[in-house]
């Protein structure tokens, strides 16, 4: 019983991290239909910038803030200097740009920082709490809380605010968005800034648990992407549920079935879900009439 609970705790923590990465994907996708393959690098930047600032003597909260701002700035630059210049390029071409950006950022990080693994202390210390035989890390609670909070904010943003709608409109029909007066370039920059900031936040929160290094982005991006697809791309609730579910499946498989094939089980579950729900658990069906 405690074992099962322990798996659930582990799955929830890791799943919340996946959810944060998936939530990061959501925004850029909602503005442009582009899945940003550099999303993992924002996660990495969050961890790395925080670590190096912290090591240079900046207090941890300030270092984290710095990292979030830095990631957001890089996100905006990526949009301004690359995505925006590519203009009306096909979505696949934009995706390749983000792949290029991910290689570029990784290369830059190993140059500016280093190739070592790093870690900084958890926000509320690293002393685990023992609740009825189940070990819970305070940092794990942070991850879950922030994931839920980001989810709520994004949910409100996309359903209640005009700017959120304008972002959706930008992806749905760029020309029409311009014709109603939406500054689509600004919407894109905004979405890159938000995505990057959320990505960085995920990286900052996870570093005390899973460490960080210049090339840590890819695995996070991969899992975050899978989580987003499981829940339904573009829908905040899908990202949250998809992330948590993926984390739980992995932890339960590793704990109860086989640790060798835990990733395999996760993907099989995704395949099965997509078989019945081709848009993921919460995905919108596209509305195109002929």
């Amino acid at each position, binding site marked *: 019983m405690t*074992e099962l609970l*322990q*798996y659930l*705790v*582990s*799955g929830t*923590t*890791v799943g919340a*991290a996946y959810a944060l990465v998936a939530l990061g994907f959501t925004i850029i996708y909602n503005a442009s239909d582009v899945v940003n393959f550099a999303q993992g690098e924002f996660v990495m930047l969050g961890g790395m910038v925080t670590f190096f600032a912290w090591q240079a003597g900046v207090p941890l909260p300030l270092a984290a803030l710095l990292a979030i701002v830095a990631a957001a700035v890089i996100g905006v630059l990526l949009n301004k200097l690359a995505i925006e210049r590519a203009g009306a390029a096909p979505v696949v071409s934009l995706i390749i740009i983000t792949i290029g950006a991910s290689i570029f950022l990784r290369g830059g990080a*190993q140059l500016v920082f280093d*190739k*070592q*693994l*790093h*870690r900084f202390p958890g926000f509320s210390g*690293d002393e*685990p709490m*023992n609740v009825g035989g189940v*070990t819970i*890390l305070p940092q794990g609670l942070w991850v879950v809380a922030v994931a839920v909070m980001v989810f709520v904010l994004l949910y409100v943003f996309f359903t209640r605010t005009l700017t959120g709608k304008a972002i959706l409109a930008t992806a749905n029909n760029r020309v029409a968005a311009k014709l109603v007066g939406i500054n689509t370039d600004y919407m894109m920059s905004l979405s890159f800034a938000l995505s990057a900031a959320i990505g960085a936040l995920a990286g900052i929160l*996870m570093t005390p*648990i*899973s*460490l960080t*290094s210049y*090339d*840590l982005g*890819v*695995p996070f991006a991969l899992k975050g992407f899978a989580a987003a697809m499981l829940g339904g791309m573009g829908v905040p609730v899908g990202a949250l549920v998809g992330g948590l579910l993926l984390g739980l499946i992995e*932890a*339960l498989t*590793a*704990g109860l079935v*086989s*640790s*060798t094939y*835990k*990733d395999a089980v996760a993907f099989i579950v995704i395949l099965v879900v997509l078989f019945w729900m081709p848009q993921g658990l919460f995905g919108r069906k596209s509305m195109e009439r002929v």
Partner: protein
Amino acid sequence: DIKIGSTVSETGPASSLGDPEAKTLRMLVDEINAAGGVLGEKIELVSYDDAGDPNKARTFATRLIEDDEVVAIVGGSTTATTMSIMQVVADAEIPFISLAGALEIVDPVQPWTFKTPHTDRMACGKIFENMKAGGLTKIGLISGSDGFGASMRKHCVDIAGDYGIEILADEIYGPTDADMTPQLTNLRSKEGVQAILNAGFGQGPAIVTRNYGQLGIKTPLYQSHGVASKAFIELAGPASNGVKIPGTAILIADQLSQDDPQYAVVTAYRKIYEEKAGSPASTFGGYAHDALRLLVDAINRAGAAEPQAIRDAIEQTKGFVGVTGAFNMSATDHLGLDLSAFRMLEIKDGNWVLLQ
């Protein structure tokens, strides 16, 4: 000039190995050249980053041989890249000293391939010896699913019986997994487990160690030589206290007695590495150090920078003391190390200490 080639994993999943290796090679070549070079000639190091990709490693090995026309190659940070390079050097007949762990690299012996790290099988043996001595015979195994972890796991399972060790539980984690709590929970709750052995390198073992501490597991934890660096202690935090590994002298350089045969070479390497790289020296850089020194030594003895002559000279290496240990190569032993240079270390208060 004498051209020596290298292809290591400066980036990619094995960069925690390849990075110190590449740095070591560069600084040593500079040092050797500053001291007058070899056979009156300067060494030119041509080095490539294969990012841990075996296909790239093969391409770079080909490039080193065909295009750069090097006389010998040092490199192959992982077993998989090493295996790729071995094919090429065998065809081209160029001596190659690998920095990777697996036994398969030197068993069966390939005429042109040598290696400097202790094999994963030796690591298992060293650890099991220590366990047995401590009366720990029932263990739980946890390993990374990468090449190093999988290969060491295989060998440990293979020879456990020889030491009277019984593996009660066998868990796997992915090299980039964020949390190993479920696997460790299983080891914790497995009835009768007296010790836990983790085979892996990179961030995995650090997270395993942290999770081990968080779960309050009390059974002794053994790690492999894949974590033999100061960085591991830092990353794993207080939970690393008491972790035991089979390591090399470099980790306890400051504890070596002056009359230890490795004292001079270890201190010298450590000094230059820490000066130039600005970070603590690790065993991995040590593998590269030994490989290059072995090579230079062989060229000196061969008296000519000719592949065949170099190869023969490497094979005749006797009593060569390196950072990893004393090498005695032969036609049937292209590693030349025995278990004696492998020292059981334990982490105490954030430092490696020698276990007696």
